[in-house]
């Protein structure tokens, strides 16, 4: 089952008197399966937060449709099963940590007994039980993030939207939040993360979508996206020089040549086999052939650059 289903979603922000129009999302399609950790990546202004806000009914779409947990997003009752940690969230400054969870719990339609039970559990989970009676106006950014995560979980949601969940959190705290998310994933919850911290998204996400200027430019598993299917790293047992390789494979794109290997860019497997044949025919001993893997960050930068370049042309 798809937890989130978005079809042809378009959002255009218009200034008063329609003097200025900004397209935040354009014909956006997306499906997120149940029980997955889905990472939404993109530079600032790509439309990530707009998408989440549309799914939560905070912002209204201009065109298209969206369903969350099988229900239309205009049905506010569906939010009983959703948890949300907004970016730069604020809670009433006069409440303490415990009060925030009680207040949010009651608004989420959670029973009093359940709130009593979950308040203690969640504050312990995010390591905020020591500060439960401290007013939130005294909290640091990291403490606010931890409390924000706890409030997003108060209704034991099926679907969790997290917008920059580790923003302002120290490395140990980030690891703890990651562990919590992994635990939630193992409990079968669907987690939707917006983040700039690509390395973190890479560590916990099953699938990733990349947005740029309101358009979906790539979507897939982290493995798929970080594996460059057209580039192979060929390692040789024989010592080589750049001249040798260029002489053996004059018509192919080769890069990063070292004394025992190089990277080969081909269009298909047939071309790869032709290269292998040529190398072997020259007497060069092949040690290994592997797909080149990029970090999510490298892939992200390369995709965004390509997308910007294509748009400028």
């Amino acid at each position, binding site marked *: 089952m798809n937890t989130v289903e978005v079809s042809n979603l378009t959002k255009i922000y218009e200034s008063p008197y329609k003097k200025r129009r900004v397209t935040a999302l354009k014909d956006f399609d997306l499906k997120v399966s149940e029980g997955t950790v889905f990472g939404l990546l993109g530079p600032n202004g790509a439309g990530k937060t707009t998408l989440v*806000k549309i799914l*939560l*009914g*905070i912002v209204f779409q201009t065109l298209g449709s969206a369903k969350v947990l099988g229900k239309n997003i205009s049905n*506010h009752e569906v*939010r009983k099963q*959703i948890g*949300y940690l*907004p970016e730069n*969230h604020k809670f009433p400054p006069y409440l303490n940590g415990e009060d925030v969870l009680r207040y949010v719990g009651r608004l989420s339609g959670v029973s009093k007994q359940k709130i009593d039970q979950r308040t203690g559990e969640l504050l312990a989970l995010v390591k905020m039980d020591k500060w439960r009676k401290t007013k939130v106006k005294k909290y640091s950014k990291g403490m606010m993030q931890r409390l924000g995560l706890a409030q997003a979980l108060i209704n034991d949601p099926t679907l969790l939207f997290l917008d920059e969940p580790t923003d302002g959190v120290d490395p140990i705290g980030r690891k703890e939040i990651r562990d919590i998310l992994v635990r939630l994933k193992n409990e079968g919850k669907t987690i939707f993360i917006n983040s700039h911290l690509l390395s973190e998204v890479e560590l916990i996400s099953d699938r990733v979508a990349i947005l740029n200027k309101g358009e979906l430019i790539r979507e897939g598993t982290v493995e798929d996206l970080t594996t460059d299917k057209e580039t192979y790293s060929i390692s040789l047992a024989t010592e080589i020089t750049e001249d040798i390789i260029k002489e053996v494979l004059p018509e192919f794109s080769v890069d990063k040549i070292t004394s025992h290997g190089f990277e080969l860019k081909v269009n298909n497997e047939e071309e790869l086999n032709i290269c292998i044949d040529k190398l072997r025919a020259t007497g060069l001993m092949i040690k290994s052939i592997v797909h080149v893997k990029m970090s999510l960050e490298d892939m992200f930068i390369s995709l965004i650059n390509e997308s910007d370049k294509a748009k400028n042309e």
Partner: protein
Amino acid sequence: MNNVFEITKQTIREAFARKIFIMFAGISSLILILFAVAFASIGLEDLSGSIQVETGQNRGVMEEVVGGIKLFIVVPLFGGGLFLSIFSASSFIPNMLEKGSIDVLLSKPISRAQIIHGKFLGGTFVVFTNIAYLVLGIWLLIGLKFGVWDPSFLITIFTITFAFAVLYGLIILIGILSQSSILAMMLTYLIFFILSPILNMREQILLLSDNKVLEIILDILYYIVPKTSELGSITSDLAVGGSLYDYQPIFTSAIFLILTLALSIIIFSKKDY
């Protein structure tokens, strides 16, 4: 209903936290102390003695004196009470709409209409409680001092709260449109202190000019703008045991309240945050 109650409760809590309740209660207590001191300094025996000698109708004249005192209290109570109420309630909506706060609120299973209803009820309850404290306190002081326990004075609790509710509808609407507490406060003061009194005198103004356009404009504005000035007069009349002879100001002000709240809900329900 639970959601409305929760937002109402949170608004009251916000009023406590922002010292609105304490400020109100402090000013009310100060007024009550001043009245207590003033009443204590009036020699009632001398006063009633002189009245008896002069008229022989002590009871009736005492009620006249009390009526005068009530009128002396009600006019500043209505104006001052509403002035403070508008000042304190103008920030409820802009605070709620602050980035970061509104995201948390709107992501919960609660309709936007319920949020507006909760905010309205919370703000009105805060003002009602404070007005009730002050009016009840004055009524008790008058009763204890003069022995006159006329409950009609207590009606002012409801008329002042009603006048506030009408203006609060406007505060909510401007708050949603502009997200500015200053603008909401200024426009409401403009209606309360300038526009409503001017429109209340429109017949006198029109005696000075036979301009038909002006007459139409003043008439239209008169029926649109809440009639806080006339609600003040009604409050004064009711406080001294008078009867309500004209329902029109109450009726049209109530319509204004319903329309501003409905418009607030419609705009709030369509706005992106």
